[in-house]
């Protein structure tokens, strides 16, 4: 096992070396290794390209966006978008190190440098902008409510104001904070878990009356739910998903924004969607304009 890996590494190294030696640095390494592109000296892009490695934080438990499946590799729209960025940096897919970034640690892992980029259904908002910076948005979701198919008593967030309906969401997420504005008594109305599939199971078992989070996530459960669930009403917030980077790293943020715009125009953004979350039947719509603040 060990010998094999060493041999493979050596082979890859000679191959890459040989290719760069004869082909120059233009598009040479494609297919086997990365490509060495020219980036401004001292920039994050140059560092990552030189290192031929990038650490990306994503969800491991979010169907359609970032779900670590049985293969041991995460899959989903966020993951595909992150791969587009990595490709633009000249880093091949297999050199990406995926780090699990659940809702509550996303700012932390960016600030302390555990990851270089976070793509994890990450809503752009002002509180978060105090600690980190966002590239994008690359998708605009909105918070919605999922109920059982035959439930007509919940029509929107205002249905929680009378203090009887129970709702489930995920600890530390934006939707959980948002719904708190509507519920009367947190103790008897709100349940928080660490993943949404637990919320779905609670809805299924009748312990809660509704699950609230971004519509695309709910659509995923509705698509897989054997026609048992539906959305109750319209989106009541706008949740633009951005890519989290270090606050002071404006160059890298512009680079990511450029890459997103490029992906909008060359179709890779749409393909990423169609291969993943698009299968749930959510509309992609027009590409949202990136916000270069």
């Amino acid at each position, binding site marked *: 096992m060990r010998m094999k890996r060493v041999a493979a590494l050596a082979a890859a190294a000679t191959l890459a070396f040989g290719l760069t030696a004869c082909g120059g640095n233009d598009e040479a390494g494609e297919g086997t290794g990365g490509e060495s592109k020219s980036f401004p000296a001292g920039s994050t892009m140059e560092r990552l390209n030189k290192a031929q490695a990038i650490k990306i934080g994503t969800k491991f438990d979010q169907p359609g966006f970032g779900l670590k499946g*049985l293969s041991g590799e995460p899959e989903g729209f966020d993951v595909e978008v992150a791969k587009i960025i990595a490709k633009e940096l000249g880093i091949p897919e297999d050199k990406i190190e995926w780090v699990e970034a*659940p809702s509550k640690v996303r700012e932390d892992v960016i600030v*302390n*440098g555990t990851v270089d980029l976070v793509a994890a259904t990450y809503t752009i908002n002002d509180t978060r902008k105090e600690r980190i910076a966002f590239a994008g948005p690359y998708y605009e979701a909105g918070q919605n409510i999922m109920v059982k198919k035959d439930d007509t008593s919940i029509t929107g967030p205002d249905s929680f104001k009378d203090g009887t309906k129970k709702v489930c969401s995920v600890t530390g997420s934006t939707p959980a904070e948002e719904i708190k504005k509507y519920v009367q008594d947190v103790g008897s109305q709100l349940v928080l878990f*660490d993943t949404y599939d637990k919320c779905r199971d609670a809805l299924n078992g009748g312990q809660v009356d509704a699950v609230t989070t971004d519509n695309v996530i709910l659509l995923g459960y509705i698509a897989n739910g054997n026609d048992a669930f539906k959305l109750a009403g319209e989106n009541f917030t706008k949740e633009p998903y951005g890519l989290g980077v270090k606050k002071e790293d404006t160059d890298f943020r512009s680079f990511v924004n450029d890459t997103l715009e490029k992906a909008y125009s060359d179709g890779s953004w749409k393909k990423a969607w169609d291969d993943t979350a698009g299968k749930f039947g959510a509309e992609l719509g027009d590409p949202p304009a990136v916000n270069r603040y």
Partner: protein
Amino acid sequence: MSQSVLYDVPGPRQRRITLIGSIVATIAVLIGAYFFVYRPLDENGQFSMELWGPLIDPSNENFSLVWERIGIGFGNTLMAAVLAIASSLVVGTLLAVLRIQLKSLTARRFTGMAAPVTYLLRGLSLFLAALTRFCVEVFRGLPVVITIFFVARGFPEFGISLSTLTYLVIGLTIYNSVVIAEILRSGMEGLPGGQREAAAAIGLSPLQTTGLILLPQAFRIMLPALISQLVVVLKDTSLGFIISYEETLNIGKQIIGVLNNPIPVYIVIGVLFIVVNYSLSKLAQYVQGRLARGRKTADTPTAAPPPAIAAALGAQSTAQSGAS
């Protein structure tokens, strides 16, 4: 006290009643289980092969993938547990020795030195003793979940960024080393005073006394407790899911995300834990039995550990195993 001293050996009539009673009770339980467990689960479709297939049917397309993932997770669990128990043992021993040394230091009067130096040294040793006492009390009183969470969130706050494995191991070590230190310390303090006096009489320094005389005996007494502590650590690694360490339960969560079969996956993981932990505690019992025999044949003066140690051991082992 062995169980049988509490009651007379049952006679033929008693045995007959027991037999009939057990059969009736078993049937009642089975009927109850059918109506209150099997039926609701079956109606929920919890027994369908769609949910169980990937876990128990080798011909299922996902079978090998699922078990490979569980294997990886369990490997990670074991690794974290072994690292944590090893480092807790080292840190715990050091901490126990430190506390014993500080205790003897605070009793020293530092004669033959200038008065200010004396006061300084005595103050310092008192301060250090109080400080270690404080740390022990705090870390013993905090839930392990909180300790792990604080390590994982707090270290990066001070610019120290490590892997989740390291966070988990540090978190577990902080708690378990304190517990081990307390067992060792009470073990050493519970030894007959003659041991310490004899060591002093042949001219050993306090440090030598601890290292050569007290510590080996305390270790010997606590070896079974140490192994049962391994069970505790193994269970505690399951808290790694809080900081995204990929141990068994976390992997289980990912499998559930794909296959949507939470109850079967948790049953399998639960059985896995019971089997491994049960074997470990059996091992602890075996070691304890051997040690007890060893003491008898070696004919050491203390055939049984002094009451204080026995009490401490009893209390500690339940306390630790109580701490999930």
